[in-house]
């Protein structure tokens, strides 16, 4: 999947993944996709809830070797 911006938030604990994601997505235009990498287990629910509440869409998500990858389309 093609992303317009990639955010590496691996190793960060709450609330950093969401704070960083918010900063990163603010720099994108509506319709563009942000790819986020995290290792915080809470971020799975956190980023999904945050995206939904902020009007963005989680287009895809995967978990591999403890790394979560999200593709979030800006709303």
């Amino acid at each position, binding site marked *: 999947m093609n992303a317009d911006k990639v955010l590496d938030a691996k*190793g*960060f*604990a*709450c*609330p*950093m993944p*969401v*704070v960083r*994601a*918010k900063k990163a997505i603010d720099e994108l235009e509506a319709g563009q996709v942000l790819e986020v990498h995290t290792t915080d287990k809470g971020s799975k629910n956190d980023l999904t809830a*945050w995206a939904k*509440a*902020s*009007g963005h869409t989680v287009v895809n998500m995967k978990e591999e070797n403890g790394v979560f990858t999200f593709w979030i389309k800006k*709303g």
Partner: protein
Amino acid sequence: MSEQKKKTTIILFSGDYDKAMAAYIIANGAAAYDHEVTIFHTFWGLNALRKDSTVPVKKGLLEKMFAKMMPRGADRMGLSRMNFGGIGAKLIKRVIKKHNAVPLPQLIDMAKEQGIKLVACQMTVDLLGLQQDELIDGIEFAGVAAYLADASEGNVNLFI
């Protein structure tokens, strides 16, 4: 996305490191949620806003005693449980580092960066004998009416 921003207000009454940390994590999270966030510091919570260096100001004896006995800045605050005279606070900071969590002073810096409104309750600033110069820059001073103005429009209102 043009509708009015949601609001979060937090009253930080506690001067405990752990409780203040919870307050500032929620505040920073709410800012990432694009909420307008206000943290209203009162009583012991004001210590989170103190500069960590001593500031030469004129004070009475009682005020001097208060200033001595209260933690000077966020990093000197103790834990609400298992503080053991400050050893607990030292240990928790080690654990925070180990887990790559954000320590309180950095959470406060981040809150300012995210445009969170930090308010000091003027009445308790006076009660505790604190002066504006002893508190960090970029904060506002207000009272209950200003808090209620924010809180009555608040979607999330917390007392910590």
